[in-house]
Each structure stands twice: as C-alpha cells, then as structure tokens.
C-alpha cells in the first residue's frame, strides 16, 4: 500500500485571514458586527462573550447556546455583508 505523506500546511503570503484561533476569530467578529464593545468598555470579558454570542446567535437564527459551537463558527466564517448587525 501507498503511504500518504503527512499534509504540510503553510502560511500563504498576502493572505489577510491567516491562522487565527477560533477565539480570536469570534472576538473580532463580535466586535466588528456590533455584538460587543471594544475592550475597556466591557466589564467582564467572559460574561460579555457569552452574552454577545447569544445575541449573535439569535440575530442570525442559530441555536442560542452562548457557546462558540461549530454552527456559530461556521456562521462567522461565512461570506457576508460588512455592515454591522448591531449599532452604527
């Protein structure tokens, strides 16, 4: 049998959305689309993340878990309009 070589994953130059962690992706998504405020305005990062996730899940018709689950991450990676969902 053929032995498949281990897949190499590289960072492609010029790619803006690189290897962010899921948490980093979520934080930037929630901030960009108005579900959270910038740091300094939030009282508790953890509490605000859960609340913001619920708000986002409700707005986008996802199951409201308040958790960074697979369907929420998929939604965050989906192509979309750049206009914020909440606020100005």
């Amino acid at each position, binding site marked *: 049998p053929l032995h498949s070589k281990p*897949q*190499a*994953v*590289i960072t*492609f*130059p*010029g*790619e*803006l*959305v690189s290897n962010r962690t899921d948490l980093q992706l979520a934080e930037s998504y929630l901030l960009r*689309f108005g579900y959270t405020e910038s740091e300094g305005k939030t009282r508790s990062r953890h509490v605000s993340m859960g609340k913001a996730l619920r708000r986002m899940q*409700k*707005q*986008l*018709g996802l199951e*409201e878990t308040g958790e960074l689950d697979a369907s929420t991450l998929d*939604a965050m*990676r*989906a*192509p*979309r*309009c*750049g*206009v914020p*969902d909440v606020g*100005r």
Partner: protein
Amino acid sequence: FLTFEGDLKWDHNDLTYRVLNYSPDLDASVIDDAFARAFKVWSDVTPLTFSRLQSGEADIMIQFGTQEHGDGYPFDGKDGLLAHAFPPGKGVQGDAHFDDDEFWTLGTGIVVKTSYGNANGAACHFPFTFEGQSYSTCISEGRSDGLPWCATTPNYDTDKVYGFCPSELLYTYDGNSDGAKCVFPFIFDGKSYDACTTDGRSDGYRWCGTTASFDQDKKYGFCPNRDTAVIGGNSQGDPCVFPFTFLSQTYSACTSEGRQDGKLWCATTSNYDTDHKWGFCPDQGYSLFLVAAHEFGHSLGLDHSSVREALMYPMYSYIKDFHLHPDDVSGIQFLYGRGSGPAPTTQAPDIPDQATTQAEDTTTTEGDSPLPTEPSPVDPSSDACKMNSFDAITEINGELHFFKSGNYWKSSVSRKGAIQGPFRISATWPALPALIDTAFQDVLTKKLFFFSGRRFWVYTGSSVVGPRGIEKLGIGKEAERISGALQRGRGKVLLFSGEKYWRLDVKVQKVDKGYPRLTDDTFAGVPLNAHDVFLYQGKYHFCMDRFYWRMTPRYQVEQVGYVKYDILNCP
C-alpha cells in the same frame, strides 16, 4: 426587517447612481446590467426611480476596491466581507462598495463574455470542441497573434461560432485610453514592462501603458482578467502557470495542498518554492446582482434582517430564481410606500366606532346563556380573501377569527381552506364596537377579552362586562391601543402596544410589576409596529400589512409569509 436608527431615508424618490469603476472579473456591460437589475428589485415595489449619471455627484456612488479603500472600513481579501454600503445621506452616505478581492460572477462560475468574432458578444460555452479536442478555458490555439478565444456553442468544428475572450491584448477598461489595448513593452518609471503590472499602485489593480511609454504619454488602462486569472493571494489577476512546483512536487492543476480549508489554489510562476506567487483558482464566485441588491437595500435605508430567507439577511447565499422576500418588501415600503406596483386589493373602510359615547366601567348585560347565538353570514359574497389585512386575529374555541371593520370570518384550524363568514360582530357580541384592535380567549376560563382603543370588554358566554378603560388593568396613557395579545401559560397574557408589552394576570385583571418591557428585547426580529399579535398553533404571530412573522416559543423568527395565503389558505 430593520431600518437604520432614526429611519434614515432619502428625502426624494428620483435617486441617481454612478458607477465609478469596474471589476476585472466581469465585462463592464455585465456589471452595468447587474447593477441596473439590482436597483429594479427595489423600484418594482416602491415609488423610487434610479437614473444613472456618467459624471458628477450621484446619490449612490458605486465602486470596487480592495482592503482599505478610502472609507476607513477595510475589506479583508477573498471571502469574508463581500461589500458594504452606507445609509442614505450626503457624501459617502448612500454609497456602495464591493470587495474586488472577491471573484465576481453571476453566482454560478466564471462569465466569459466575448468580443468581436461572429457571436454577437455571447458568452463562451465551456467545454467546447475545437479540432476534435475539448477545451474548458479560452485558448489561443489556431491563432498566430496569441489572442485568446472560445466557441460560444458546444462545438466550434460544426458551428464555427466564436468570439475573443477578455485580454489585455484586446482592450483595457477604465483609465484614460478609451479602452485601447495594452502596448508591450511599455516604459514606466524608466523600466520596461512586457505584461500588465501592479507596480506604482497600492490597490493591487493590474494596469498597462497603451502607448510605448507611460512616462512620456501618461496613457494607461486597467487589464481585464483572463478566464485563467487567479483571485486574491498575492497575484490577483495573473494566470495560473502549469505545471508549477510546490514543496518539490509538480502540479498540473489547481490544488488544495498546503491548506486546511480545502480551497483550490495555483502558483502564478512555475515555482512556488522560489517565487511564492500564488492565488485562488476561480470558483463559483459571488453573484454581483444579489450582493448589489442587498447593498442597495442599505443605501436606501434598510438594516440587516434576521429573516434568513430575506435579501437583507447579512449572510450571502446564492438564489437561482430571485424574488424579493415579503420581509424586504414590507421594510422598503415602510420607508417609501408602495409606489405604482400591483394595486392593493379592495379594502373596506373602517366603520366609525359607534360605542365611543358609552360610559366606561358599566356592566351592560348579565345573562344566563352560556354561548352567544351562532350567527348567520351577512353577505356571503364578501370574501375574506379580498381583505388586505385584518384588525385582529385570534383563536376562539379552536377556530381562528379574523376581525375587520364590523365583520368577522372564521376558519377552522383543522379544516384548512374552509372559511365561514362574514358575520356581523354586533350580531354575536352586541356590546362591541366595529373596530376590534385585539381579542383573546383566556385559556382557563374561556372568557373572551376584546380591546378597542383604550377600552376593553370581557364576554363570558353572552354576558359582558365593559367597556372598561385599560388603565383599570394598570396600563398607562402611553398605550393608545392594545395591538395584540399572546396567551402565556395559565392565567397570563402579554398585551402589546407600540414598542412595549405588559403581562396581564387575567384572574386579577392587573398587569404584573416590572412591565412594560421593550418588545425588541424579547421578540427581536419582528416588526415593532405590528398591528396585530396573536397565538396560533403554539407560535407567536406578528402581523404587519398583509404579512406575518411567525416566531417560535424560543423567540426565533422561523417564517415570514402572507396572512391570506398561509393562514387563511386563500387560493
């Protein structure tokens, strides 16, 4: 639907737009057509008109750009953010921007519109056969000038119908050369160029000189993408080069090796390992028409909708046969009205309230009869399906009741399509006025509550108490009328008015402490100016005009539809 804060809208209906530049992905005529169709989506259902300007300041300025493109809201490369637009107003307000790191198509893959030849500008047909071989890209085989061409039917050998594919050897776009083709080599900043370049620009667009010396003549144009051009990466617009070397392996087609996301890519030189030049291979792309129609919704004053099927939902999805969703229609008509589109169906005028002079808080009847007399229809030709909207809808004894201007119809929940009526409200409930804002049946006692203006009546069988003022319930003067009611378990009912709601304890006939609350805090995604709210089959229904929003008990809007067709089951 949602509108922007303050209901931002244009103060005139004759709007103008201007296309500032084009994308290399699509022929200019295809782009113009996509924008025109996108505007038509909105003008079809409103009094708005859209005229195109070729110069000067238009209400809606449209441009393609990449990354930071001058407004402080940068795009993010391929995928992710596709476009954005600003709400109505002066300056950048109203403008729509499209991310040119996306691959713009009509939603189903590359559109290669031909020029010249004998195909009258038809699109390439891939694959096509030429001299017995099948091709899925434009080719320069059979020509000595290197111009790429394609057949516009499946078989060139039999049909001989062809056209030339987009190429810098044929024409440029935008710039200052009226579409003249590139001249190679050309001199820029003292250096000679044999191909289109992004040098001298920060936006990544490929350009060329259209004379032998840009330095001398300053004549230039932008290069259209060839059908083999890559998207994004660091070689936007350059063609794939096959074969190429990647991690010492040779590839003769696009690959997803080296990536975790499965996207296909290729190198744009023969060796990625040494040159690190790459881009994504063309995919289905994003429909410029659909994205533009969404963005123009913002330009007109619509914010994002939470209805997944609505055009104004923030995520992109391709729809083959596009029709504007009722949620979008009611949103835009909320701002601008209906226009000269399909005329609304005949709507009977509201009958003036005959009971307004009655004293409040009086018991008018206390009878023994357990049930009101079964009414007989007043005019069978008066059809519920001709009503545009209803004053109130509620379920009484297992039948949906639709109240309108002194009449009501009944529809059996179990027998769909069987509509009875109209019946006179006064014949069944003599104490009631013609206009009923809201009605509900208490789950426990089966008492019927009717609301009209700031008054309410309670029927038990044929006995009635009322009218009484809603202040007796603890509802202040901020509520001009009760627009809807939702039974919540035993003995509790939510009463809606404006953008607030109260929780009524039916037994004590008082609203609970802690109310009113904002409807939007709990029922996000439904119209805040719903003229009727009712419970039907365990789900919340919010009505506005002809439409209803159905919300689950978990507060998720799961459907928007027509009252007439989906609830009344009209043909």
